[in-house]
């Protein structure tokens, strides 16, 4: 290895995916994905199953070959290198510890393949197992560890070889909710501590928004939007992102003069080229607020509260408008003024909204 490698050992390396394409038997899994991860950054690829996020990760790992495009680690083209020569650390969705080895042996396995001396192997195994908080379990076999512990050993094993890139392929999906929360934050802590550039693939938006520096939302082999978690959530670039990330009300309205009129309220549009006519506005529950109904005149935004879900600081209120259901999310203190059964008047904050595309094949120029 070069001097540059040892110097950047803990600093993280830029990872660049250039126009990656991959298809399986005529079906396009990845349609020209380009993505650059800054050194030490954690980027989450988020999307429904079959969106190409796992394919993207496998191309970075070298477990599959791209039809075209390049993968660059720190300015070096690694596209032609097999997985074993790429220096990536990977944590898989399925439990992947070698069953015939103890936790410690699992960690030292990769080190011995990297020609690390025996004393150094033991030292680094102890160090990384401590990093994931499993020093006491070094002599246990995989079957003597819980699912969460197994994934933490897998993380230690991946990090011990000081990889150029850390790849996390839905590492939390097989775990139950409580363990998932804890391990999620722990992965982030360990990743920051190691300073390793990380690509994290998940279908769970909460996970992606919670720990990644940037989130890339993928759909049908393409990157729909790449941005910080706040950007993705509060300023979705496309209707797909708006609907995939977070809860969204789909409210029918009429598009005209660059605005959309929804049940008597005019809202600005995010998209510029929406054809005039009927359209479905995507309104976040946070943009909907409630007021007690003063007079009992029926109106387009007057309805009955049918459920209040307590979420902690905020509550989600479900309102039946007669012809449709609308979700509103507001501070719990305000929500408690409108228990189920009360009549309320809704108002929609005039934030720019997206208009849902017609449900059709997602092939658009």
């Amino acid at each position, binding site marked *: 290895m070069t001097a540059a490698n040892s110097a950047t050992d803990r600093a993280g390396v830029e990872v660049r995916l250039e126009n990656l394409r991959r298809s399986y038997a005529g079906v396009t899994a990845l349609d020209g994905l380009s993505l650059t991860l800054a050194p030490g950054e954690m980027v989450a690829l988020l999307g429904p199953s079959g969106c190409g996020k796992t394919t993207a990760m496998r191309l970075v790992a*070298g477990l599959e070959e791209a039809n075209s495009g390049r993968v660059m680690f720190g300015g070096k083209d690694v596209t032609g290198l*097999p997985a074993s020569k790429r220096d990536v650390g990977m944590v898989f969705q399925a439990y992947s510890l070698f069953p015939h080895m103890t936790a410690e042996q699992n960690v030292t396995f990769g080190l011995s393949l990297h020609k690390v001396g025996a004393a150094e192997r033991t030292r680094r195994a102890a160090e990384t197992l401590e990093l994931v908080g499993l020093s006491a379990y070094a002599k246990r076999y995989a079957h003597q560890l819980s699912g969460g512990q197994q994934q933490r050993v*897998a993380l230690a094993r991946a990090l011990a070889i000081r990889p150029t890139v850390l790849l996390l392929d839905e590492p939390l999906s097989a775990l139950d909710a409580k363990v998932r929360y804890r391990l999620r934050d722990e992965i982030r802590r360990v990743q920051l501590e190691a300073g390793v550039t990380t690509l994290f693939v998940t279908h769970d938006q909460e996970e992606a928004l919670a720990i990644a520096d940037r989130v890339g939302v993928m759909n049908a082999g393409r990157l729909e939007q790449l941005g910080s978690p706040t950007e993705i959530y509060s300023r979705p670039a496309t209707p797909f992102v708006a609907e995939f990330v977070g809860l969204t009300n789909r409210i029918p309205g009429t598009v005209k003069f660059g605005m959309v009129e929804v049940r008597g309220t005019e809202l600005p549009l995010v998209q510029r080229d929406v054809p005039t006519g009927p359209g479905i506005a995507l309104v976040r529950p946070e943009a909907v607020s409630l007021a007690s109904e003063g007079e009992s005149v029926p109106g387009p935004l007057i309805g009955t509260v049918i459920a209040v879900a307590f979420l902690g600081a905020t509550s989600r209120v479900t309102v039946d408008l007669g012809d449709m259901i609308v979700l509103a999310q507001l501070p719990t203190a305000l929500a408690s003024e409108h228990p189920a059964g009360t009549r309320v008047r809704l108002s929609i904050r005039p934030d720019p909204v997206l208009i849902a595309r017609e449900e059709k094949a997602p092939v658009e120029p």
Partner: protein
Amino acid sequence: MNRSRRIKLQIFRATVFLVLGAFFLVPIGAMFEFSTRGNSVSAPRTLEAWTNIVKTPDLIDAIVASLELAAITSVAMLVLLLPTMVWVRLRLPGLNRIVEFLCLLPLTIPAIALVVGLYPISRWMRINLNESIQMLSVFYLILVLPYSYRALDAGLSAIDIKTLSEAARSLGAGWGTVMLRVIVPNMSSAILNACLLSVAVVLGEYTFANLLAYENLQVAIAYVGLVSAGTSIAVSVASLLFAFALLMILSFFGRPRDRVARAEETVIPGPLGPPIGVK
């Protein structure tokens, strides 16, 4: 489960065990009894038939040859089958059915038909390669395919070879390392099973050797039987006992390490898990 049902079940189990045990042991006992008879009904018991085994050089040669064949066939089977099956599972899953079909095919063809087909190859090998009996292992390799395939298939199904091999490769392992340090150690009992079945098939093989004019253990037993029935029976009992002993040894070595103390309530199905019925 109530008490009387449990007792009934116990009785049922004991009955099945005794009946099957008798089914296996009575013929072997009878063979042993026959092999210790003297030349006439009134003659005293003798172990002459057994001592004859070591006194018959042809028999010793045949035993050695059969053991060699068993060893060669087992090794060749592993070298051929294991990497192929792993590769097909990982890279060419579409071929899985075809490979399975090919491996099971010898089971459906009578040995006699196989021999007729293989005879020209055997003759060519004798003329151009080697006349020694070890050449039979080429044909035995075909014979043991179905049994070994089944055993290895079960072993491969019990582990997630895709994830394990990908994990190993991402850690820097080439394919050789993946095979020897990750896959083989995790299916040791399946490999031992496949070997045991191969050994059993080879030690019991008669048709191929006889028709292709090689003298292996079974052929030698048949010849010896023409001269001394007692000796041929003694050798048969000995070879059966040898197979049993092998089975016992292999099942002891093949027993996986303590897999009881799982941190979670997950039970691994298949050979690595606890036996069915264990609560």
